């Protein structure tokens, strides 16, 4: 049998050309040239770009947290939408209940957190076109009966938000969607073990929507609750709703000041609420023995302090209030 040397040669040359073309396409020029005084921001793929400097008067820097040229949410108020996921009527924990639903929705109202001097701390953040209003408001809720099951990862969340919109929530790129899960739901990317909640954004139904995930923290009181009985607990040891209000505060503050993860954070990547995580400042004691540090909407609350972007920067309980380290 004759060996077709000529054809094999052509075949090998062809293979070489394909390989070379693949190699060239796979290359990406790294644009790491920072100008004088510019800082480099990683893109997450090994490359980096120069961080833009603020140009507007509404951006105040030098208070321990920096602006990175992205937008903030400037709604007055910023609408907050809730997707109650799982069983919020009679779930496995006593706090998987209608009482929690009512308390959280009350907490987020414009006459409670939404219009508080605590929320006003957020007015110290802005972008090149204006400042955060310092107001938010609970603007609607739907219930989701385990549409993604009792166990899901981060990738399921855009679908849950999308189904929330189909169920009646507006498709609003200027609002924040909260996916709140009952205690029998597992978010497999680290809820209770690494985090108590998180916020992010994604293109959903054609819009850049901002959303946060927060589970019922009664699932892991040692990791995510400051006290097992909160100031609004219906019974001893039922602190889930109060614990969730603390995490919701954290996530909404950050989703407003850094909605696309490119606006306000410090040199370590910490956003405003991260800088005061689990720091509460001075507290008082409620009739049921629980500690609280805020009173608004006719109720007492125990929520972490917020980083104020003025007066050198620090954690405080109200705009212009004293700074505390713990």
């Amino acid at each position, binding site marked *: 049998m004759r060996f077709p*040397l000529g054809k094999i040669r052509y075949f090998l040359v062809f293979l070489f050309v394909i390989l070379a073309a693949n190699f060239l396409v796979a290359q990406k020029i790294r644009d790491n040239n920072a100008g004088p005084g510019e800082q480099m921001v990683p893109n997450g793929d090994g490359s980096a770009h120069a961080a833009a400097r603020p140009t507007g008067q509404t951006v105040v820097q030098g208070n321990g947290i920096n602006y990175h040229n992205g937008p903030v949410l400037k709604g007055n108020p910023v609408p907050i939408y809730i997707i109650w996921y799982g069983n919020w009527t009679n779930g496995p924990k006593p706090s998987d209940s209608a009482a929690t639903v009512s308390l959280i929705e009350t907490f987020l109202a414009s006459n409670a957190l939404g219009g508080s001097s605590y929320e006003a701390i957020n007015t110290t953040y802005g972008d090149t076109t204006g400042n955060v209003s310092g107001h938010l408001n609970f603007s609607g809720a739907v219930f989701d009966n385990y549409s993604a099951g009792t166990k899901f990862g981060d990738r399921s969340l855009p679908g849950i938000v999308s189904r929330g919109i189909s169920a009646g929530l507006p498709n609003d790129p200027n609002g924040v969607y909260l996916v709140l899960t009952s205690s029998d739901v597992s978010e497999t990317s680290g809820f209770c073990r690494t985090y108590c909640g998180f*916020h992010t954004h994604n293109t959903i139904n054609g819009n850049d929507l901002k959303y946060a995930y927060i589970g019922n923290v009664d699932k892991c009181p040692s990791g995510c609750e400051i006290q097992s009985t909160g100031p609004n607990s219906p019974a001893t040891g039922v602190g889930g709703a109060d614990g969730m209000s603390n*995490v919701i505060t954290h996530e909404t503050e950050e989703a407003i000041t850094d909605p696309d993860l490119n606006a306000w*954070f410090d040199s370590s*990547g910490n956003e405003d609420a991260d800088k005061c995580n*689990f720091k509460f400042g001075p507290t008082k004691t409620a009739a049921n023995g629980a500690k609280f540090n805020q009173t608004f909407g006719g109720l007492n609350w125990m929520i972490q302090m917020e980083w104020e972007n003025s007066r050198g920067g620090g954690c405080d309980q109200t705009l212009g209030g004293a700074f505390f380290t713990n």
Partner: protein
Amino acid sequence: MMKERASLTLLLAFYCFAFIGMPIFSAAQEPEKPALTPRIITATKQVTMFSGIEKQMLQAVEKKDKAALEAMLTEDCNLHLPDADLLAGEDWLASVMSKDFVLKSFMIRQLDVADLGNAAVVSYDRVQESTHKGQNDGGEFYVVDLWKKDRDNWKLSDRYVSKVSSTPYMPKGPIKPTGKQ
């Protein structure tokens, strides 16, 4: 003619390996890693606390603060390194405190805590810029620490270190949040 045929056969075998064998071989080495989602987390109390402790430890190394570092180790602390004998805590202490070793900068990310009551398993990625006797000694490391509670303090009992890469990307500017810091 025979030589040419033999070399062509070798080349063919090489291409077959490059196109078919290599991907299969590489894929078989480790499980598929879940992608990192860009998001910003509210860290648990344990993650917040141990992030601070691990940072304190690295700052003690950076500043050559032997007393501070020593106070964070159990008496029988050990370091476990791949392809090496067990390293006693005191020997590790001596090596990082020596003038030969210089820790210039570091970054911790992906910190996770398994809380076991009076003990905790803490894992994280550490990226560091450092030199040993003037030579580059930095890189990216995967670290697993076993901490034990000693009254009100946590002390390092065992550390397992694997080098992931010798040439890490260390950002010069602000770190963009990934939510996994």
